[in-house]
Every structure is written in C-alpha cells, then in structure tokens.
C-alpha cells in the first residue's frame, strides 16, 4: 500500500516536471519573467518626420525561421515602436497606406535592446 502511494507520488512529480498546460490568469501569481530580445526604434518619413500608425512587421532570417507572432504593432504619435521577440536575426519593414519602407536587418540577443529606425518613402 505504501509502495503504491510512493509510486503514485513519483508519477505525479514526473508529469509535473514534463511541463504541461495548467491554467493561469492575471488574478494569480505572476509567472517568472522570461528573457526575450527587444527591438525598438522610430519610423520616419523621407523628411525625417515621425510617422504615426505605421505597421511594423518582422520576418525571421534564421534557418529554421522563428515563428513571428501576428500582432499588430503600430508606431505611436512619436513614431516609436517596440517588438519583443525570440532572439535571432530579423528583417523589419514598416508599411502605411500604400507605402512600404526598405527592409532593415537586425540581430537581437536575449535580454538585449536593439535600436532599429525605419524609413517610409
């Protein structure tokens, strides 16, 4: 009987160690912060003025490619944007209306903050 209880306990611990998907919510204890890479910068037009509401999209250049979350990340009134991503090499493009800027490349490291300004024609 004692052996059965011990075996059950080991089983529960083993499964717990495998991870899994237990429910979490913002009403509970905050989970540990995981280091990501941050890429931030300012979107400007050809005259150097900040562009608000430009959609900033990264594309992974690594092989295999990192999946990129399909968030709408739009530049603010000061043209500034920020992306939090898995570390790696990315190409960022800003688009607005029918304008697309020249893609710009960046390598982002875990815990680092890379500055990458983007230009719209």
């Amino acid at each position, binding site marked *: 009987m004692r052996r059965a209880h011990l*075996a059950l306990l080991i089983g529960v611990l083993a499964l717990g160690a495998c991870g899994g998907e237990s429910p979490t919510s913002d009403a509970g204890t905050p989970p540990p912060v995981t280091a990501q890479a941050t890429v931030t910068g300012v979107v400007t037009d050809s005259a150097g003025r900040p562009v608000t509401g430009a959609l900033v999209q990264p594309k992974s250049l690594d092989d295999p490619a990192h999946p990129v979350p399909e968030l709408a990340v739009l530049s603010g009134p000061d043209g500034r944007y920020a992306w939090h991503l898995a570390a790696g090499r990315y190409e960022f493009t800003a688009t607005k209306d029918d304008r697309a800027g020249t893609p710009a490349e960046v390598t982002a490291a875990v815990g680092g903050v890379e500055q990458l300004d983007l230009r719209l024609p």
Partner: protein
Amino acid sequence: MAFAGALLATVGLVSTASASTPEGVELGSSDTEAGVTAARHSGLRGVSAYEGTGVPADVTAYGAQRVPAGHRIRGYATPTGDVGIQSIIGADNRVRVNPTTSFPAGATVLITRTVDGVERQHCTGWMFGASLVLTAGHCVYNQTSGWYTGQLKFYPGANGTTYPYGSCTAATLRSNTGWTTDGSADADYGGATLNCSVGNTTGWYGAYWTTASLNGTSTTIQGYPGDKAQQQWTHTDQVRESGSLRLYYDNDTVGGNSGSSVHTVRASGSSGCSGRCSLAFHAYGVGSNGHNSGPRITESRFNLVIGWR
C-alpha cells in the same frame, strides 16, 4: 517498474478527469461507444456554435459600453493590401466582411491595446460563450512585460469606425503555463473573461478536437488585419499540415490577425460540433515550413477553455 506503474496510475487519473464532460458539451457518436478505447481516443468531441440574438437596441443591456461612430483607434488602411507582407501567401485573396452584424462577424472581436494613452489595434479574438473571448496567448500575456491587465478593449463586430456591439473590458485575462512560463509557441493561446455578456447577442463560435489528421479540412480565418483600419476580413484555405499541437494552413493573414479562430463549417447535426467550429487559435505568420500556423485545439485544451466559460 514502480515508476512505470505510477505513471500509468497517474495517466489513468488524468484521463478519467479529462474524460468528464463539461456542461453543454456534445459528444461525438464514437465517444459514446463504451469500452472501445481506440474509437474514444480518435473520436471527436466539441460544442456547437450559437448564432446569438442579433444586434440589440441597447448594448448596455448586456453590460457593454456604447461606442460612438468615428471613435478613433490607431491604424490604417492600404488600398490594395499588396505591401509585401510575408504571411500573405501568394496573391492577397482576403475578402472584406461588410456589414458585420450577422454571425459569425459579430462574434469576431477586435482587440485594442492602450499604451501611454494611445489606443491601437492589437489582435483578434472570438466569442466562446456569453462573456468569454478566446485569442492567442501573446495577445494577453508577454514574456517581458507580463499580463496586459487594464490595457485591452474588446469590440465585437467592429467595422471600420462603427461599433455595433459597443465595447467591453476584461475582468480576467487567461492563458496557460505552456505559454506564460515556458513560452512555447505550440501553447500560445489564451482568453479574457469580459465584464459584459455580449456573447448572448453576438453568438459564439463552436469548437472541437480530434486526434485524427485534419489535413484537407477547410480553414477560414476571419479577423482584423493591421493594414485594414479596424475592418473585418476573411480568407478560406485548408489544413496543410496537422501537428499534434499545431495546425498549418495557407490562409492570408497580417499582423493583427493573431487570436483569430481557425475554423471550419460543419453541417447542422454534425457530431460534436456544428456550424462555425474552431480547430485552432491563429498565432503565427509563415515559419520554416512555409505555412502560417496556430495552436491546435486538443482534448486537454478544449477542456481547459470550456472551464473558463
């Protein structure tokens, strides 16, 4: 030996618990075949879509806030959509949904995020109950900054600058440890319990899980791409690859479509789920295999999100 036995015992406990049927959940016929283990595990279980009662005369009756036409959310519209976005695979075949006052358009939710006083387009969600919106995990929780508590607003059926169902805020943001602790893209799903019951009027999507391959099953993604100024757009493709935790498809999407229901349409009376039945949560643009993707609805995920209702 004892370890293996313990694992089996534990799996047995989990299996028994997860096999219990949440309220309102319809079982597929194969699930009712007592004693047929293989059929049980390759069966299909789900809950059907509900088409709602239509646009109410007064959204405040459901606890939602009225939103005046013209309310400004930061975003823009491209005339052609042809801006070289990677997750549009081939030609841009998206089609605008207009008006947005019938099902499932009303049950498709624009999610905005307000930072430094500026409200911007953020993600898409889908009603899955009177007060529950499901979406991608990264729409409610970020590994660097944590929960987006107090920053999100939910506009069911938003259509440009009109908001037929008003807006609601979140009482509770929800996800799972696979995303919030492990940051696994395979577990990138979440939701929000709203402070309103607008789902009664918008209706809600159904959902089902199966362990069988879904290759070839039609997939529709309807949501709010970031290049279309809060307009709702849709595109239909099919499942191209079925992973046990992830589905891959070639629906045309853009940033802002994250959290959309990846759904198929099943005939009335279908086993498990009929109507608009979700298969996955759209979350990622083109990856190494050339397809867009999202976490698949599995048995345990289905039971988890049903428990959020």
